[in-house]
């Protein structure tokens, strides 16, 4: 999985310039239900990964999210 590309996609969803692995998702003002839905859709369409909403809500940082998606892809 190309994590740099994933962070770029995440930044686009959050309407910001850059997302770093250590960033806490809840600190972004735009991390809302629409962003979560957009991440679910992105995970499904780009990486063929089905994430549950509960799983995504339990994730803290952008890096955790990338790890979750990578683990699911295997």
């Amino acid at each position, binding site marked *: 999985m190309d994590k740099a590309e994933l962070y770029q996609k995440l930044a686009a969803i959050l*309407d910001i310039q850059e997302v770093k692995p250590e960033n806490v998702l809840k600190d972004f*003002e*735009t991390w*809302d*239900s*629409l962003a*979560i*839905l*957009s991440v*679910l*859709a992105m995970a*499904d*369409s780009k990486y063929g990964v*089905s*994430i*549950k*909403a509960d799983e*995504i809500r339990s994730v803290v940082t952008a890096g955790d999210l990338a790890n979750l998606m990578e683990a699911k892809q295997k």
Partner: protein
Amino acid sequence: MNFIFHRKRISGILTIVPANERSFVEEMKNFNFPEARSLKLKEVMGFDKHRIVEPGVCVSDLAVFGMEHLFKKGQLRRDEIDALILVTQSPDYFMPPTSSVIHGRLNLKQDIFCMDINQGCAGFVIGLLQAFLLLEQQSIQKVVLINADVISRKTSSKDRNSYPLVGDAASITIVERDVEDSIIHANLKMDGSRNGVLMIPAGGFRLPSTPDTAVLEDVGDNNLRAKDHLRMDGSAVFNFVQTEVPPLIKSLLEFAGVSMESVDYLFCHQANRFMLQKLADKMGVPYAKMPSNEVEHFGNSSGVTIPTAIIFNLQDRLVTEKFKVCIAGFGVGLTWGAVLLNLGRVNFSEMIEYK
């Protein structure tokens, strides 16, 4: 579960939408959100206009209004209705059945089979299957299928996850025998273990409505709603649809021996534009074949969205032409089902406003 039906057809569709049109941009001030984020929501999800009943308007009001319209225009006679199926989740009463209320208000004959079905977004598929089953009886020649809901009355206006997309509406579909040797294929699935994904928790016998169940609670993301209100786990619904619907449609087409290329239109339940476009992407279906424009004009009116989308997109072509159509509904229950049929050369295809 697979079904096959012979010699049955849809011979007319009428949709009734409330005249009261609301705009998401005007309603945004009700929600405790940054305006830019709400505009993003409008752009992505397709929230724009939706139709909401005036206070006090019930399902039987919309249904009777539509039926009287058909009687007046000579498109339906009272004495030829052998069965009346009402699919709704917002009945006038717990008892009697709202189909009986409609039967009484319309002075229909006593030789008739009236029934209420409690179903939501798969309600058009469920209603059609029930109509086809009833038509297997010799005594039943013509079935009136009414899909109707006024779910806005059970949705919190402070819940941005649900309120901007709900719409109220009714549709009347006439289902009867076909003189041609037509074949209809269908596939239906249910999973009650996920019944909590879409629900109104209070107001039934398990949790009766009290002043406590009417109290607005902060359910996260600045959304306020009460236990008396519709609750939807949007992400779970999204995953459900993306996971279950593509294999359902694939298996239906295989069962019928029909390729997706030979299907003219795929009319899915109009949940929202985002979900439908992701679904189309996943199935490799061009957007032109799978309309997703109903919600932005009328709102999501559960079982009524499919007939509304058919009329809105095909309009008069439904009277003059015939199409191979796949219809797919999915939602509360959870329930998901699809029907493959030839649809067209109907006697009427019309949308009217309830005032």
